[in-house]
């Protein structure tokens, strides 16, 4: 066995590091480092920088404008980007819709839509979840009824991440009500300025705005906007969720969080000693560090499998479960390290005001609360256990 990267992969890593060094704007990485909320301009700027380099669509094949990276190269890029505190690449167009169109879309859809994802003309968001259909997507109720050369959509979507910045949304809609619920779903593209659509913000637990609900009232969408065939949506949704599950371990984010946690716990004093030398606290840190060290290898083992045997297997659900819990534990320890100093509600005025503490401390509690989402979204960790039950344990 050989756990190290090949010479080519190490050269690639160095190239990525150098690029990030030179091209990642400091104000962006500062904001990411402390856990501040990025606005649309922040994300667009990073999107454009990566696109100019040809590194934006890391999972796309070359013929559609991707860099043609292997799973390992893609992993290296993600890990290095996290280490450098680069903003996360907004996944809806690039990691979700792009691969769906490449596999299921018509030539016209591919030609028209994919370049607009790359150059940032379109910002896509995701219309999957509904108030009564979160992890149980098959029970979704938003209807699309054929009327001549249009579908008429009625219903409600929710948890639409960054929908406030989007101009388009891809939706799962019900096109058939009889038969098995999975067999009556279609995948359709909708422009958000179509009459009858209303988007409302959902304020989250920590006070931030990153998700929305979207209401559809007699929204007319041309039939050409259907992706794949009518009632094929379930197959597409499953394909998309597999793609969503790449980089699901979030190892790079956790490595960064561990580094920050240790620095923080060296800085914070308890009983005249660095908190990191308090045996109870150190034991909690050591526990999660050991889990993360194992996770790194688990992640590489699954990448190796993907690289040598094609698609990653259902084991990626293990990465989701373990990886999210590790990140949440790190956030929890950071919040706990601060004690009452984590209590103030973060505001723009506090951020950057040295009298009110280190900037990364200001957001520690907010980050902890916000990241409780990690074990819920993308198929809750309980749903991941259901997937593993069937696919891996064959129970």
């Amino acid at each position, binding site marked *: 066995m050989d756990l190290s990267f090949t010479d080519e992969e190490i050269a690639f890593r160095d190239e990525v590091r150098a690029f990030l060094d030179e091209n990642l704007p400091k104000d962006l990485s500062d904001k990411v480092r402390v856990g501040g909320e990025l606005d649309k301009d922040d994300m667009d700027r990073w999107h454009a920088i990566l696109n100019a380099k040809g590194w934006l669509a890391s999972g796309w094949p070359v013929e559609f404008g991707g860099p043609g990276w292997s799973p390992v190269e893609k992993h290296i890029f993600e890990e290095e980007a996290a280490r450098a505190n680069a903003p996360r690449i907004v996944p809806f167009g690039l990691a979700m819709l792009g691969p769906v169109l490449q596999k299921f879309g018509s030539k016209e859809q591919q030609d028209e839509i994919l370049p607009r994802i790359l150059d940032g003309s379109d910002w896509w968001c995701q219309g999957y979840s509904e108030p009564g259909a979160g992890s149980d997507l098959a029970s979704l109720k938003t209807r699309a009824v054929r009327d001549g050369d249009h579908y008429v959509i009625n219903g409600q979507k929710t948890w639409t991440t960054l929908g406030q910045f989007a101009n388009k949304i891809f939706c799962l809609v019900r096109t058939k009500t009889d038969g098995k619920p999975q067999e009556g779903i279609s995948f359709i593209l909708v422009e958000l300025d179509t009459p009858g659509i209303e988007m409302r913000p959902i304020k989250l637990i920590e006070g931030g705005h990153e998700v929305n609900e979207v209401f559809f009232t007699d929204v007319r969408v041309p039939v050409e906007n259907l992706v794949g065939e009518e009632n094929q949506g379930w197959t597409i949704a499953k394909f998309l969720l597999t793609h969503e599950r790449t980089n699901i371990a979030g190892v790079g984010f956790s490595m960064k969080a561990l580094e920050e946690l240790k620095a923080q716990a060296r800085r914070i004093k308890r009983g005249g000693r660095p908190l990191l*030398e308090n045996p109870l606290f*150190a034991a909690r840190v050591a*526990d999660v560090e*050991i889990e993360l*060290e194992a996770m790194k290898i688990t992640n590489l*083992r699954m990448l190796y499998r993907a690289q040598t045997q094609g698609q990653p297997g259902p084991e990626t659900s293990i990465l989701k479960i373990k990886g999210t819990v590790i990140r949440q534990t790190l956030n929890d320890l950071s919040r706990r390290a601060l004690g009452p100093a984590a209590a103030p509600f973060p505001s723009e005025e506090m951020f950057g005001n040295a009298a009110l503490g280190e900037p990364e401390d200001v957001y520690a509690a907010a980050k902890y609360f916000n990241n409780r989402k990690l074990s819920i979204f993308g198929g809750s960790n*309980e749903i991941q256990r259901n997937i593993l039950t069937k696919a891996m344990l064959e129970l």
Partner: protein
Amino acid sequence: MDFSLTEDRRMLSDSLTRFLADKYAFDHRGKVAYDAPFHDPALWGEMAELGVLYALAPEKAGGFGGTGFDITTVFEALGRGLCPEPVLGTLMASKLLTAAGADQAGLLDGSRRYAVAIGELDAPYDLDNIATLAEDDKLSGRKSVVYGGNDADVFLVAARKGDALAVYEVTGTDAQVTGYGLIDGGGAAELFLDATPGTLLLDDAEAALTDALDAGRLALCAEAVGAMDATNEILLDYLRTRKQFGVAIGKFQALQHRAVDVVTEIEQARSITILAASRMGETDQSRAVSMAKTLTGRAARLVAEEAIQMHGGIAMTWEAAVSHFAKRLVMIDAQLGDVDFHLERVMAGYAA
């Protein structure tokens, strides 16, 4: 990056696994593991003939392996077969003999059985508090729970000699050896030394002892991974076939999610063991090994306890294989440093 076994190691793993499945089937294991000498001397010889012990030593010492991945290959198979043969003592003794540049032909061909006597009642895992004293090549003290000591020809004894630690060879017949069986099968001994003659093997032996202990710890992690795999297979088979309320109990979500957690922990234990194997011989060897022993110890206990719980009353019986795997998995944590001991070693690295 390459997570596959080399051809040589795959062959070793296959032949040892097959050997244990054929000759060391559950019934046979049950017959030998709990009665003196708590292993099967005839099969020990056959296993040595397979070349298993040679895989534990480097070429310069007469073997053909000795790396971290050689160790994990052998011990994962031993764990899967729940083998109570005293291979661990052989591995650690080989490390010490290699460090001393001593001949180990008898160790490698299986004709001389070695036990390594480091731990004491008040210092079961660590080298800092060893009380056994060496003066003029006479040893005095008590070594406790020496694995394989009940049936060893030679003991390698760690003792305090002046300000430093040394390792002595003590012939089994020269010492008072009180052997006994272990709750999870296999044997051990208390070694009572009272001006017992020994032959100095290594002076200033702390580094060599640490290296031998690290190798032993890595071996135990791999053994645990193998035993966890086997336990998990038994558990899944049970969940698929055992019916309650008219359905296989594996259909109940309460059990499904716990079974997934069991598999998840096994995969994490496998990963950290691979990591530790890759770090052998590097400067962070001890830290990596301690990380592995911590995570593996915790995972092994979880797998054991969950397997018992999900089997219900059946797992409480002597007849069920799962009960014996569970015992080994729980007790493996107590060998060469438990979760807390190794967690503390990892934490110690935080003090700047």
